C-alpha cells in the first residue's frame, strides 16, 4: 500500500466526498418516504426495516467511497451485496409479506421481485469479484496509474 499518498488533505477530501454520497442516500430515503406517503398505512409496519436498510446502505456508501482505490472497496461492495440479499430475504419473509389494515389482512407474494433483486445482487457480486481480480492484477503488473485521489 502506498501510504505516502494517504495525506491528511486527501483524507479530508475523501471523507467529504463519502459524506456527500451518504447524504445523497438519505435524500433518496426522504424522497422514497414522500412518494410512499399515500401507502404509508400499508408499509408502516415495515418502516423500521426500510429505515434500517437505508442507514446500512448509507454507511456502506460512505465506507466504499472512503476506501476507493483500495482492495477494501471491493470487499465492502461484496459485503454490501450479500447484506442486501440476506436483509431482503429476512425482512420480506422470503417474499411473502402480510399487512393488517384495520379489519383487513393483505398478503402479497413478492417472490418475483425478491428473485429479481437477488439476481441483480448476484451479478453485482460477480462483477465485484472480477473487478477485485482485475484491480490486483493491474496492481501486480504495476499498471495501476495513480490519479488525483489518494491511493493506499
Amino acid at each position: 500500500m502506498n501510504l505516502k499518498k494517504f495525506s491528511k488533505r486527501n483524507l479530508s477530501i475523501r471523507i467529504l466526498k463519502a459524506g456527500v454520497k451518504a447524504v445523497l442516500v438519505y435524500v433518496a430515503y426522504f424522497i422514497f418516504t414522500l412518494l410512499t406517503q399515500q401507502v404509508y398505512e400499508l408499509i408502516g409496519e415495515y418502516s423500521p426495516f426500510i429505515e434500517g436498510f437505508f442507514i446500512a446502505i448509507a454507511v456502506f456508501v460512505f465506507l466504499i467511497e472512503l476506501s476507493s482505490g483500495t482492495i477494501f472497496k471491493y470487499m465492502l461492495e461484496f459485503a454490501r451485496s450479500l447484506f442486501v440479499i440476506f436483509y431482503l430475504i429476512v425482512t420480506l419473509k422470503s417474499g411473502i409479506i402480510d399487512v393488517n389494515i384495520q379489519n383487513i389482512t393483505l398478503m402479497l407474494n413478492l417472490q418475483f421481485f425478491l428473485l429479481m433483486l437477488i439476481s441483480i445482487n448476484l451479478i453485482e457480486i460477480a462483477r465485484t469479484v472480477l473487478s477485485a481480480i482485475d484491480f490486483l492484477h493491474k496492481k501486480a503488473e504495476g499498471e495501476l496509474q495513480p490519479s488525483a485521489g489518494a491511493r493506499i
Partner: protein
Amino acid sequence: MKHVLRALRWATIILWILLVFLVITLVYSSFNIGIDVGEPQFFVEDDRITWAIPARINNNGGLYGIHDLNITTIIEDADGAILLKSSSFVPLIPKQETRQIWHNISISLEKIPNYQVYLTNDTDFIMKHSIRLNFGKVVPCFFIFNSTMPWGAPLYNLHVGEPDCQFNATHCIVSFNVSFENHSPYINLNGTLKVEVLNQNEEKIGMNSFPINVPPYQGNDNYPAYNETLTIPVDISKLTRSGKVRLTFQTSMFSYETEVPYELEEIF
C-alpha cells in the same frame, strides 16, 4: 476482463431499469383499479336463501390484467364450525376492461349441521371473506376480512303450554297454547303445524294440522308473533294417563319437530 466487467455492469443497469419500470407500472395500475361493491340483494327460493353481492371491477386504467380472481365466503357459527362455503371465480379481467360479477352466498337451512339450533336461537354468524388474485401474473395477492351476520331465529322463544283435556262422551279435546316470534328478516313462515297426540304406547290417538303464516321481521321493534291455542280431538278409548304431544312445523325451508309430555290427573 474490461469487456466482461462492462457487460456485467450493463446487465445490472438493464435489470434495475426493468425492475423499477415494473414496480412503477404495477403500483400505478393497482391504484387505478376501481372496485364498487353494491347493495347485497337476497332472494328466498323454495328451500334456500341466497344473498347476491354485486361487484363492479374496473380495470380501465390498469396496464395489467387481473388473473384468477377467486372470492370465497365461509360462514361459521360462534364456535368456529363451518356452516357453509361459497366461491366465485373470474379467470381474467383484462386490462382496460370492466367486469360485473355477482358473488352468491346460498344457504339451504337443512344442509347446515344442527340447523334446528338456529331455528329457535338468535346468534351471530361469522362471515370470513377471502379474495385471491394474481395481478399481472406477477404479484399474487390474498385479502382476508371478517364480518358478522346477525341471525334471527324464525321460531324464537318457541313455547308450548301444558296440554289440557276436556272430556265429552266419546272424545277428549286436548288443548294447549303455542307461541313464538319470527326474528328472521328472510324467512316467511308459511306452512303448516302438524300436531299429533301419542299415548304411553306411542300410538297416535289424535291428529290435526293448522296453517301458520308469520311474516318475516321487518326491522322495527315488533317481531311478528304466533300465539294460538290449538285443540285436537283425541280418541278417549286409547287415551292413557301420560303421553306426549308432537308438533311438526313444516315449511318449504325447513321441518322442525318438538315434543311435549302430558300428564292427566284422571281419565274417565
